[in-house]
């Protein structure tokens, strides 16, 4: 293994584990009925939504080569499939991959 890559992996995993571990330690004194727990619950959902929105609007990696229009079209169409399929999670997910590949090929 190349040393640089191994160090990068170790640093990445440490940076990731730090947030997880601190979260586990600091949640020891928090009751699930407390206001603090409710607030953290809101923070968690909002942070995830921010991450998803950022992944779609300002992507890194291969997705950044797809046009804004194709990304938005995939999101809107997939949400329509989600509601039409009575909130099934698998159909819109598979649909999004096929739709993205097709849209990117033609537009």
């Amino acid at each position: 293994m190349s040393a640089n890559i191994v160090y990068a992996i170790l640093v990445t995993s440490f940076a990731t584990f730090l947030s997880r571990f601190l979260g586990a330690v600091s949640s020891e004194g928090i009751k699930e009925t407390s206001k603090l727990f409710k607030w953290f619950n809101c923070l968690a959902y909002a942070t995830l939504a921010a991450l998803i929105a950022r992944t779609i609007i300002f992507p890194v990696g291969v997705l950044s080569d797809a046009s804004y229009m194709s990304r938005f079209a995939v999101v809107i169409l997939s949400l329509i499939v989600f509601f039409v399929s009575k909130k099934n999670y698998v159909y819109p997910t598979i649909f999004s991959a096929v739709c993205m590949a097709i849209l990117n090929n033609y537009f």
Partner: protein
Amino acid sequence: MINREFFFKGYKSILAHDSPAIALGCCFIAIGALLKNLGFNIQESIFSTMLTYALPGSLVMAESLLVGASLLNIFLAVWFVNARLYPMAVSLFPLMMHKDQPKWKYYFSCHFIAVSAWLIMKSNYKSIPKEQRIDYWIGIGSATWSIAVIGTFIGFFSSEFLNKDLMMGLAILNPIYFLCMMVGASKTIQISLSVLLGAILGPIFYFLSPEWSILLGGVVGGTIAYFVGELNVS
């Protein structure tokens, strides 16, 4: 030590009709192919997924390596993008804390905190007795973690067959799956508003600071949603 019945119940949750297995597996296939293209060997790719087990963090690491960033820069970039795991842990572990369970289970299983496992646990925890929730959680985490490792393995060896269109298709799967799960989980005003405000504010804050945008969007959006929800209740 670990209650087998609840561990396997958690492990099998990945087989449910609405499980994240397909989305998660496909995303790590893309990661496996990406890591191979970056010059990682198979051991490094698997090692990376096993130790990090967080998709955005792996992507940031890959991009940082590509531009020759220092280890400190990689640490900070990954820490910023994965800081969301802190509120996720704090909003999950109190649901599983039980005085009869040893602490090591909580410290060990915090490694499994990732969007897919977190959302599965959040939607199923009420059906599990509190004492056994940690074993159920370890089962869910082990299952999603296994899928990630298998996905990386498949992606690494199939990278030559994955053209750009296919890679794009694989890359969009995960955000769409999580988006649908978040919309599906929006059953109270607080959660619905948190999701909506986070999705709006995250990209807006990106223009101010790309590194802090996720955290700022989450903290500001989540706090507003919390107070609106509390006002609504009172």
